């Protein structure tokens, strides 16, 4: 026990002496939480629209006005012909072309039906899909407006319109950052637990100091605990800083209990520290450890449901995602912070994390050898 305390003292001493790491530990959560939720945003805005109006009627102008005043679209050009408008897409100046055919107003009035053409640049899938959907929505809105106008005031006859009123629960304004901030907290813990711990142990290998420890009577568990506890505490500290920023900057106050949140963070950190430890037992130098850790953390991040929804993944990817510790923690953090779920609702995920913690750490300990 005395030896473990001494190992911890040494570890903290080294940590506080490395000013760049220390600064990073505090800067990382701040910068990530300040920048990412605001920049990485799924709300599609400023879609560049090229208009081809063959009709030049009051109806076509009314439609154009409706589209541009929605706030989502920016009119970048009015071209006389479709090929010219398409040219704007080729030059990446426009994202969407809307073609209003000749006789738009006449056909609409006389025959009650008219087609418009929408061409979308689909290189950026999300932008294309959402942009197209917004445009369709505005046109159909316009369509019903026109019909209501014709029908005149008074009780509606013959046409029935379903008006949908949706309410966003847990995130009433549908703000993207409310969804992102809790997930970024998880990413921070992963970086501290996975990266820093792996690099720290491999550094001892690189410097040869691990050999000195191996030739001493110090026990395996003492060494491993001596490495894990500092990063575990550091992880909880970073988590706390992150929560404070979420509260101060974004006004996100956890709805659920802080105790449950910290319990989950504590178990998750043990799992991810085991992962870092495992990487370090297989790596010879910091470069190797860095690359391996980066490889996995990249996959973890993109597959964990941080940015994209798990439910829309193919079945095999969902299985894979469930094998990632990050996935469950991100889900749970959102549940606890935004929805206020209690321990009972997240106990299944907690079980998952506990299994990860046991498996990863056992594997790492078995693979760490004092003798080669």
């Amino acid at each position, binding site marked *: 026990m005395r*030896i473990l305390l001494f190992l911890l003292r040494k570890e903290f001493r*080294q940590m506080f*002496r490395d000013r760049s790491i220390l600064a990073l530990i505090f800067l990382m959560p701040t910068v990530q939480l300040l920048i990412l939720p605001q920049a990485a945003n799924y709300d599609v805005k400023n879609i560049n629209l090229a208009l081809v109006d063959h009709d030049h009627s009051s109806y076509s102008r009314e439609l154009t006005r409706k589209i541009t005043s929605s706030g989502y679209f920016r009119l970048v050009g009015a071209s006389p012909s479709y090929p010219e408008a398409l040219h704007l897409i080729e030059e990446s100046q426009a994202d969407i072309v809307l073609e209003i055919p000749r006789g738009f107003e006449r056909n609409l009035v006389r025959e009650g039906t008219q087609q418009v053409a929408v061409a979308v640049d689909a290189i950026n899938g999300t932008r294309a899909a959402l942009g197209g959907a917004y445009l369709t929505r505005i046109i159909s809105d316009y369509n019903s407006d026109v019909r209501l106008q014709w029908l005149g005031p008074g009780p509606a006859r013959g046409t029935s319109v379903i008006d949908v009123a949706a309410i966003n629960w847990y995130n009433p304004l549908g703000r993207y950052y409310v969804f992102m901030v809790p997930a970024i907290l998880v990413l921070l813990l992963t970086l501290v637990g996975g990266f820093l711990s792996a690099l720290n142990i491999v550094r001892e290998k690189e410097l040869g100091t691990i050999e000195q420890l191996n030739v*001493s009577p110090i026990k395996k568990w003492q060494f491993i605990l001596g490495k894990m506890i500092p990063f575990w505490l550091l992880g909880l500290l970073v988590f706390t800083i992150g929560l404070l920023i979420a509260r101060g900057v974004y006004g996100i106050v956890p709805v659920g209990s802080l105790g449950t949140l910290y319990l989950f963070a504590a178990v998750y950190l043990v799992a991810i520290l085991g992962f870092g430890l495992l990487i370090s037992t297989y790596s010879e130098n910091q470069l190797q450890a860095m690359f391996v850790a980066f490889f996995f953390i990249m996959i973890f991040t993109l597959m964990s449901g941080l940015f994209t929804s798990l439910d829309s993944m193919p079945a095999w990817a969902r299985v894979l995602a469930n094998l990632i510790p990050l996935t469950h923690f991100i889900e749970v953090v959102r549940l606890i912070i935004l929805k206020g779920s209690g321990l009972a609702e997240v106990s299944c995920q907690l079980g998952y994390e506990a299994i990860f913690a046991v498996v990863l750490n056992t594997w790492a300990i078995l693979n760490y050898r004092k*003798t080669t």
Partner: protein
Amino acid sequence: MDAVTLEHITKTYEKGTVRAVEDVSFAVKPGELFGLIGPDGAGKTSIFRILTTLLLADSGTATVGGHDVRTDYQAIRNTVGYMPGRFSLYQDLTVQENLNFFATLFDTTIAANYALIKDIYEQIEPFRDRRAGKLSGGMKQKLALCCALIHKPTVLFLDEPTTGVDAVSRKEFWAMLGQLRQQGITILVSTPYMDEATLCERIALLQGGKILSIDTPDNIVRAYPHPLFAVKTDAVHSLLHDLRAYTPVLSSYAFGEFVHVAFRQNQPNNDAALRDYLRARQHTGIVVKPIAPTIEDRFIELMTANSTAAHGN
């Protein structure tokens, strides 16, 4: 009981293709200063790592302080001091912190064994609050020695402690080893420098993972089988060339400003005949003088004998 024993130790790397240590056996007596002498790649570090329980041998048995390296490794880790060839202390901890840390690892304190390290530690004490990474090469090495000694080991393993250290520090270091020996600590030291071999009580000459010879430095030099001459002329380069073309010469190799020459047959007029030969080859400033062989001469002689024997097979 011997402090360290090795019996038929063999270690291979890369699935048996690289034979780092081949059938090595020797014993070190308690309190002895024993040297492993050999060039880079001779297997010195592998032997050290096997004895300090960092590496498992493929076959053979070894003991340190009576404990088997394979089964009783925990006891060995409690009692040996190991100073690896590369400086491997915490660069970001101070001199004092490093020393304190290693003392605690062995469940002891600096004060408990201060007498043992006093002479060495006094030299680095003025820098005790300096970080180890900022020390000079010689200072680092003294600190490493202190850290290896702080738990009063019964056997001290020093792997190439003087490689990359200046001549003055090397001399100081060997003086310190002499003092430690008087305190009864068994010391195993390896070095690629032949001149340091004479400072050991007994040495093992290693080459390609095999032991060429084990004896006291005096006996090893005495076993050199030929009269040896040092030869010098004004044209050093063509001298070597001409000596190799001269049939009575068995071996010739550059050694400082001289070329060391041994003859196939021990004739009394060997040197006179050589002088005549060199004069006939237009050499000027010819010096031929008999000299006493050194460890290095014996090493080269054993090495060539070994490789010709190997080729003969």
